[in-house]
């Protein structure tokens, strides 16, 4: 290849890299040359998964998808469609119709694409996808089609799906959302109509309306307030009653008191014929609070759904051993098919599929989700292990003692329920303040009433009600939950799942951010860093041949070579020799791929050229001589340096804490601009390091991915796990970065910072407003309409301020 051509090729590669993957929009790794032809144009792809998905979409006649979509697709995983676990769903008892949860829906065009692709599958009669719940309903002909082929089709075009299970999928949250939607609608209708009746009274001025007309308007308002009070406001009264019985008053108590007092006062005024009515304020109050709740519940449902999909991408499965446990001859079956006395293999990081007794092996199990106990427990042969316990150390063989596969299910349900539940310290603080606020307010109202009895007994009642209404704790109770819900929702869209409520608050406070190296800052798998052609063939051609030879090899080095090649030739008579390499025939020529010694056996002579330090070389050669050397090494994530830079710019101290050698840790740290790198740490030493930092007063955020990081993830003040990492790590983390991408971490910090400042602004506004409005009301300066508008404007301001968080800057 001439120098000019090579230069042009390099420029084209740089341009592709800047552009990002056409399918999923992620940056294209250096040296990758995947592409797909879409509507006549060749488009760059970041990985073979995306390329295959794009090709399948185009081949299916759905290229329109790319023209109409409004967001990039999720990154597709090439191996996903091949997962053998998918066959297990065929035995799940779905006959002819079923619902599936679909992951990776980014925009409305996905709906069209999925429905169309499915209708092309032979035997599928009907397919409809609900965009709001991301649930797919399919009807199929049992003779021609099986559930697993539906799932495979979806995976080929880049969406993972699995059978929908109501128990697992937060059905309750969904029902709650529907009910809340109705309550919100009723409150909104009632609010608008009551406002219509209130307006004339406000506008008419004193004496312009006769008493009969005023009474008519007020009675009509009363009738229309009743649905809002009796139906829509239920959640507040029920919540307040529960809080009082438990003796732990939260935000519902002041809210219920506010609604009750304003309604009771207005009713008394209406019946007695003196004083003003505040039915418009009551309905507005109910509507605004319900609106905030609805947002909150929506964010929680989405978070729960995302987490559940993350954990349940594949059906619950078990490795059942055939015959001798020592032979480790395992078959993959559905966990529900296990029977008592079956022997199952539980690998490190997997959860026990059912209750059982250890037959062989010695390990540590993690019962954190079952019992809440955070330390792992040592179990040896003869000990019982409950289903759902996570094997934290090494592979064991279990004899199943009960087929209670619900225990695993129970674990998942608990995990899902935990998502988005509970309240961060800031919200608890606001709750407590609100309670004192209401008590103080009630006292103040009584004082104002008594004082006005002395001054002007006719206005005493009116003033008392106006104090209650103008100060209703609306703004205060909307301030935090709305902001948190908006932030959670936004982060989920950006690929960060917030599991624990305190995550954002603590992350913002964090002084140190500690990264694991392998799998977190790096990809955790080898990539072809460099192809050195030493023979007549070009590097790209050598890669194609190598990819053909490695076509069916599950080894990580083999898949790295496959990923780097832009398509493969077809290889015949491939034989592999353990520890050395493979040989086979491509286009009528014999090739060997593997270690230098292995290739030297056919190419003759010795390998030339020095191998760069820290890389694993793989050689390609034929009988005609040496052809190429591929240097493979674990690659730094493309976005890692940028993320570290952004975290440092935000004033955080970034630390690299690795189990790898000090030298390797230091090398990575130097490339990323991390000043502190500590290598050679065992899991408990990592935890000790974090504990020491904490003792020195640091607030530590930890980012990790592996099984060995679980303890330190739990030990840190706030932690994030990688979505592609071990489940165990995710169980212990406060947040999960859902994609195979570090960049959302910096977004999360940014969002955390903005969320907290929005919450502070909201609380400050609520305080300032009340300090100004309450004395004014107590002094008798406010008319009812002023009180009502003041309350509404203040609440709306707080909600709108919180909703700013949903927008991208």
């Amino acid at each position, binding site marked *: 290849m001439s120098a000019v051509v090579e230069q042009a090729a390099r420029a084209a590669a740089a341009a592709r890299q800047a552009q990002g993957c056409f399918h999923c929009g992620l940056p294209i790794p250096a040296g990758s040359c995947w592409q797909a032809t879409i509507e006549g144009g060749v488009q760059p792809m970041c990985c073979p998964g995306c390329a295959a998905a794009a090709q399948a979409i185009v081949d299916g006649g759905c290229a329109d998808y790319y023209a109409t979509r409004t967001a990039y697709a999720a990154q597709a995983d090439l191996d996903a469609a091949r997962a053998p676990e998918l066959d297990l769903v065929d035995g799940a008892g779905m006959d002819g119709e079923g619902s599936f949860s679909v992951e990776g829906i980014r925009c*409305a065009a996905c709906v069209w694409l999925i429905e*169309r692709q499915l209708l092309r599958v032979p035997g599928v009669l009907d397919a409809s996808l*609900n965009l*709001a*719940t991301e649930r797919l309903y399919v009807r199929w002909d049992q003779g021609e089609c099986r559930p697993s082929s539906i799932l495979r089709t979806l995976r080929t075009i880049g969406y993972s799906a699995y059978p929908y299970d109501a128990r697992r999928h937060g059905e309750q949250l969904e029902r709650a959302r529907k009910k809340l939607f*109705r309550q919100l609608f009723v409150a909104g209708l009632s609010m608008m*109509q009551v406002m219509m009746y209130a307006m004339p009274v406000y506008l008419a001025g004193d004496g312009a309306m006769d008493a009969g*007309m005023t009474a008519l308007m007020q009675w*009509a308002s009363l009738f229309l307030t009743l649905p809002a009070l009796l139906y829509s406001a239920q959640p507040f009264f029920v919540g307040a009653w529960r809080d009082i019985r438990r003796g732990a008053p939260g935000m519902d108590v002041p809210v219920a008191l506010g609604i009750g007092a304003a309604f009771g006062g207005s009713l008394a005024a209406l019946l007695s014929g003196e004083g003003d009515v505040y039915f418009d304020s009551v309905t507005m109050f109910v509507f605004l609070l319900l609106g905030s709740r609805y947002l909150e519940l929506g964010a929680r449902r989405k978070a729960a759904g995302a987490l559940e999909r993350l954990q349940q991408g594949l059906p619950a499965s078990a490795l059942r051993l055939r015959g001798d446990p020592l032979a480790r001859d395992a078959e993959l079956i559905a966990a529900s098919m296990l029977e008592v006395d079956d022997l199952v293999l539980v690998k490190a990081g997997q959860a026990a599929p059912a209750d059982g007794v250890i037959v062989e092996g010695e390990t540590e199990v993690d019962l954190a989700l079952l019992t809440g106990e955070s330390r792992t427990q040592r179990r040896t042969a003869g000990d019982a292990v409950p289903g759902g316990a996570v094997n934290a150390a090494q592979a064991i063989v279990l004899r199943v003692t009960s087929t209670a596969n619900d225990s695993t299910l129970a674990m998942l349900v608990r995990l899902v329920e935990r998502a988005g539940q509970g309240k961060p310290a800031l919200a608890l603080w606001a709750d407590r303040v609100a309670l004192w606020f209401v008590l103080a307010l009630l006292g103040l109202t009584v004082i104002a009433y008594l004082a006005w009895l002395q001054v002007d007994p006719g206005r005493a009642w009116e003033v008392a009600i106006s104090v209650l209404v103008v100060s209703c704790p609306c703004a205060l109770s909307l301030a935090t939950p709305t902001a948190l819900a908006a932030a959670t929702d936004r982060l989920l869209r950006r690929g960060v799942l917030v599991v624990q409520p305190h995550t954002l608050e603590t992350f913002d406070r964090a002084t140190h951010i500690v990264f694991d190296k392998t799998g977190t800052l790096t990809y955790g798998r080898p990539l072809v860093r460099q192809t050195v052609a030493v023979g007549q063939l070009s590097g790209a051609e050598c890669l194609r041949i190598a990819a053909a030879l490695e076509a069916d090899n599950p080894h990580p080095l083999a898949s790295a070579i496959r990923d780097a090649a832009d398509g493969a030739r077809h290889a015949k008579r491939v034989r592999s020799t353990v520890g050395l390499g493979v040989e086979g025939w491509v286009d009528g020529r014999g090739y060997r791929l593997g270690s230098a010694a292995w290739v030297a056996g056919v190419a003759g002579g010795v390998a030339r050229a020095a191998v760069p330090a820290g890389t694993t070389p793989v050689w390609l050669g034929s009988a005609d001589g040496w052809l190429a050397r591929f240097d493979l090494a674990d690659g730094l994530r493309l976005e890692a340096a940028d993320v570290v830079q952004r975290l440092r710019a935000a004033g955080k101290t970034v630390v690299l804490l690795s189990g790898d050698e000090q030298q390797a840790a230091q090398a990575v740290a130097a490339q990323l601009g991390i000043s502190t790198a500590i290598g050679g740490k065992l899991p408990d030493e990592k935890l000790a390091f974090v504990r020491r930092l904490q003792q020195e007063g640091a607030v530590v955020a930890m980012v990790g991915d592996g099984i060995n990081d679980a303890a330190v993830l739990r030990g840190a003040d706030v932690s994030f796990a990688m979505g592609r990492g071990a489940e165990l790590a995710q169980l212990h983390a406060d947040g999960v970065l859902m994609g195979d991408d570090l960049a959302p971490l910096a977004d999360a910090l940014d969002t955390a910072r903005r969320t907290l400042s929005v919450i502070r602004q909201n609380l400050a506004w609520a305080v300032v407003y009340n300090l100004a409005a309450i004395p004014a009301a107590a002094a008798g300066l406010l008319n009812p309409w002023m009180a009502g508008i003041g309350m509404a404007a203040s609440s709306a301001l707080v909600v709108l301020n919180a909703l700013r968080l949903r927008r991208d800057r």
Partner: protein
Amino acid sequence: MEALYILVPLSVVLVGLALWVFFGAADSGQFDDLEGPAYRVLQDDDR
């Protein structure tokens, strides 16, 4: 102005009617997916 003595109660009845229609629609699942159908009509499936 006397007309209001009829019209205001009538409007209360109308709101009741609107609520009844809304609950009927909600029960039939019309509000289950508020985003999808709006986009679905834009997709041309006739090719």
